[in-house]
C-alpha cells in the first residue's frame, strides 16, 4: 500500500513537469519542399536520428538490421533505435504522446492505424507529399502497395505515413482435427451458422480433457471482425460518432458472448490464451492476424490453415497497418525520409515476410515464395484486403479500446449487454467531444 503513495505523487510530479515542457512541442520546422527536385542528403553527413519502434522480438531483429544497413549508406549518422515491446496499443501511443509533450518526439515514428488519427489530430507528423512526388524511388515503392493500405494514412489530401506491414484477422483452423472429425474445408463464403455448426462438432470431452471448437481472440481488434461481418462497427463511417449502443453491435456482442456461455463452443476468454490453446490442440479454430505464425513455428506447430472470417450479413474483416511517419519537430527531415525508405523498401519487406509477425505491405513481398510457403492458403492474407475494412480508430482510440473491453468483461461476467455498452458509449462520447 505504501507504494501507492509514491504512485500518486509521481502522477502529480509528472503533471507538473509536463506543464513546464508542453510549450516546446508546438514549434514548426522547415518540412520537406513540395516543389523542386528531391536531393538526398550527402553520404558523409553527420547527424543523429532517433526512431521509435514497437513489436515483438522478431520485429526488433528486422529494425536492427535496417539500422545497420543505413550505417553503410551514411557512416556518420547515429541511429537511436528505440524499441518498445508492445503489450497494448494504448500503452505505446501513450508513451509517444508523453514523449512529444516533453519535446522529445523521435525523428521517425512507427505507428499503426490505431494511433494515426490521434497523431494527425495533434499534428505530430510531417506531410510526406514533397518526398512522394519528387523522389523517384518512392514512386516505384508506392505503386507496389495496395491503395487501401495507403488510404488510411492521409488527411486533407496529404499523405503522412508510409506503411510497412499490416495484419488482417482471419480464422485459423487445425487441419488434423478437421480431418479426424471428417469436416471438409468450408468454402470461402461460409457463414456464422456454418461456423457454429462446425464449432459444435469439434467441441468434445469435459473437465481437463475438454476440447473446444473455437478459442476466442479476446481484444477489440479480435472482436471487430464479428462486428464488421454483421454490417456494423463501434464507430460511424467518418469516425465522428460512437455507436456502441447500435442494435447490431448489441446483437454481435450477444453472439460473441453466447459462443462461450450459451453454446459452450469457446472457453471463457478471460484467463485463457487462444494462442496457447490452439497450437496445443485444445481448440480446433481461433481467430488471429498473421502475427501468430512466428510463435506457432517456434512451438513446432504446423497443422493449420487459414480461412476468411465467416459471413454474418456481409463478408468482411478488419485490418490494421503499421506505418512510419516523420515527426513534425524533427530537424533531420530528409535523413528521416531516407531511413523510412529503407524501412519500407523491398529488401526489408522480404524480411517482414520471413519474420512472421505481419503481412508485408508490398505485393511483391507478399507474393514471394517465402511468404506463401505456409500456411497453404497464405495468399488470403493479402487478398482479404479486397473486402476488409480498417480498424475503426478515432482520435480517442485510447478511450474507445479500454471502454469497449471493460464492457465486454462485464458482459462476459453475466451483466446486461445494453447497460454495459451504454456506459462505454458515454465514455467514448465524452472523449470525442474534446
Amino acid at each position, binding site marked *: 500500500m505504501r507504494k501507492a503513495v509514491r504512485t500518486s*505523487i509521481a502522477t502529480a510530479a509528472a*503533471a507538473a513537469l509536463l*506543464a513546464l515542457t508542453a510549450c516546446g*512541442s508546438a514549434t514548426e520546422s522547415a518540412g520537406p519542399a513540395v516543389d523542386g527536385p528531391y536531393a538526398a542528403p550527402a553520404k558523409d553527413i553527420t547527424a543523429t536520428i532517433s526512431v521509435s519502434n514497437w513489436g515483438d522480438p522478431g520485429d526488433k531483429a528486422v529494425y536492427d538490421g535496417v539500422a545497420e544497413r543505413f550505417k553503410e549508406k551514411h557512416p556518420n549518422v547515429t541511429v537511436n533505435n528505440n524499441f518498445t515491446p508492445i503489450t497494448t496499443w494504448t500503452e505505446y501511443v501513450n508513451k509517444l504522446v508523453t514523449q*512529444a509533450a516533453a519535446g522529445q518526439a523521435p525523428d521517425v515514428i512507427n505507428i499503426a492505424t490505431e494511433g494515426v488519427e490521434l497523431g494527425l489530430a495533434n499534428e505530430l507528423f510531417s506531410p510526406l507529399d514533397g518526398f512522394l512526388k519528387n523522389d523517384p524511388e518512392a514512386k516505384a515503392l508506392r505503386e507496389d502497395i495496395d491503395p487501401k493500405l495507403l488510404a488510411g494514412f492521409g488527411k486533407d489530401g496529404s499523405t503522412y505515413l508510409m506503411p510497412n506491414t499490416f495484419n488482417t484477422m482471419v480464422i485459423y483452423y487445425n487441419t488434423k482435427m478437421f480431418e479426424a472429425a471428417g469436416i471438409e474445408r468450408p468454402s470461402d463464403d461460409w457463414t456464422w451458422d456454418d461456423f457454429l455448426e462446425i464449432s459444435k462438432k469439434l467441441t468434445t470431452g469435459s473437465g481437463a480433457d475438454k476440447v473446444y471448437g473455437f478459442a476466442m481472440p479476446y481484444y477489440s481488434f479480435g472482436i471487430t471482425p464479428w462486428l464488421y461481418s454483421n454490417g456494423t462497427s463501434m464507430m460511424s463511417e467518418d469516425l465522428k460518432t460512437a455507436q456502441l449502443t447500435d442494435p447490431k453491435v448489441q446483437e454481435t456482442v450477444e453472439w460473441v458472448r453466447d459462443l462461450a456461455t450459451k453454446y459452450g463452443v469457446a472457453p471463457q476468454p*478471460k484467463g485463457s490464451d487462444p494462442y496457447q490453446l490452439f497450437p496445443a490442440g485444445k481448440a480446433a479454430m481461433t481467430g488471429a492476424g498473421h502475427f501468430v505464425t512466428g510463435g506457432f513455428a517456434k512451438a513446432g506447430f504446423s497443422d493449420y490453415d487459414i480461412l476468411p472470417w465467416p459471413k454474418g450479413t456481409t463478408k468482411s474483416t478488419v485490418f490494421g497497418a503499421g506505418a512510419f511517419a516523420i515527426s513534425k519537430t524533427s530537424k533531420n527531415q530528409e535523413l528521416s525520409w531516407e531511413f523510412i525508405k529503407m524501412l519500407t523498401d523491398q529488401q526489408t519487406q522480404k524480411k517482414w515476410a520471413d519474420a512472421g509477425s505481419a503481412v508485408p505491405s508490398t505485393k511483391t513481398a507478399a507474393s514471394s515464395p517465402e511468404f506463401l510457403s505456409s500456411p497453404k492458403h497464405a495468399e488470403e492474407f493479402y487478398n482479404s484486403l479486397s473486402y476488409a475494412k480498417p480498424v475503426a480508430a478515432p482520435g480517442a482510440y485510447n478511450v474507445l479500446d479500454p471502454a469497449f473491453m471493460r464492457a465486454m*468483461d462485464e458482459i462476459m461476467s453475466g451483466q446486461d449487454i445494453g447497460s454495459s455498452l451504454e456506459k462505454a458509449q458515454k465514455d467514448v462520447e465524452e472523449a470525442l467531444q474534446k
Partner: protein
Amino acid sequence: MTLTAPQTQLPPAPPSGRGGHPGRLTATRRREALTGYLFTAPTIIGFLVFVLGPLVAAIYLSLTKYNILTAPKFVGFENYARMFRDERLATTYGNTVLYVGAAVVLINGFALLFAVLINQRLPRVLTYVFRSAYFFPYLVALVYVSIIWQALFQKDTGILNYYIAALGGERIDWLNSSEFSKVSVIIVDTWRNVGFAMLIFVAALQEVPKDMVEAARMDGANEWQVFRRIVLPMISQATFFNITITIIGAFQIYESIIVLTRGGPGDASRSVVMYIAEVAFNKFDMGYASAIAVTLFLIIMLVTLVQFRLRKSWVNNE
C-alpha cells in the same frame, strides 16, 4: 559539539540561554543552525520538489483543461462540477470506501487476534517463528504477492477452487465476477498488511504492565474482563496508529488490483487511484485527473483530522 565557555566561570545558564557572551555564542549558534539546515536540506528539498510542488501544480491543473500536448486552459471549477455527473467516479469511490472499511476491520481485527495469540506464554522461539511467519508477506513486493494470489484465484486451475470443489462447493470465479473480484482484492490486501499491524500490536502488548494484569486477576477478573478493561485501553495508542495507517493505505490501493483484476470486470474492482491514473495517462485529461486527486487528498486529510479529534475520547495517553 563544541563547548563555548569554561563552565566553572559562569553561573548556571539562564533559561533563556541568551546570557554570557552574546557575540561568540551567536556565531556558534549561526554555525550550528547552518549545520542543522544542511542536515535537513535533503528532506526539505525533497518535500518541496516531490510533495508541495506537485500538490500546488495539481491544484492549479485541476482548474484547467489540459491534454499534455497543448497548453493548459483555465476553466475554473468545471472539472469539480463534472465529478458529480461521473458515474464511473461514483463506482470507483464506492469500491474504495468498501476497501477502506474492510481494511480497517479485517486488518486490525486479525492483527490484534494474532498479536494476542503470539503474546501468550509460549516458548520464546515459537513466538519468533510466528511473528516472522505473519510478518513475512509484508516483506515481499506487492506485485509478486498479487501475481501469486492471482494464480491461487484462477477459476479452473487455482488451488483455492481445488479445495472448495474437493469440499463439495461450487467453483468461484474469483477474479472475473463482479462481486468476488472485490473480495479477492480485500483478501490479498488483508493478507499482505496484517503482519505489519500485528507487529505494532505485539510491541504494545509487551508494554502492558504484568503486575497490573496480575492484580486484576487476583481481584477476580476473568480473562475477557482483563482484556477489555486493562489490555485494550493500554494498547489504544497502537490501535490508533494502526487504524490511521490502514485507512490512508486503503484509500490509495492500486497495484494489487492492477495485477489481480485490472479493475474489472467493468469497474467492479477499480479504485479511485486507478481511475485517476486512467484519466490522466490514457485519456490525457490532466485537469480532471488533478481535480479527482485533489478531492482524494482532501478526503484523506479530513478523515485523518477527524480521527485525531476523536482520539482524545478513547486513546489512553498514559
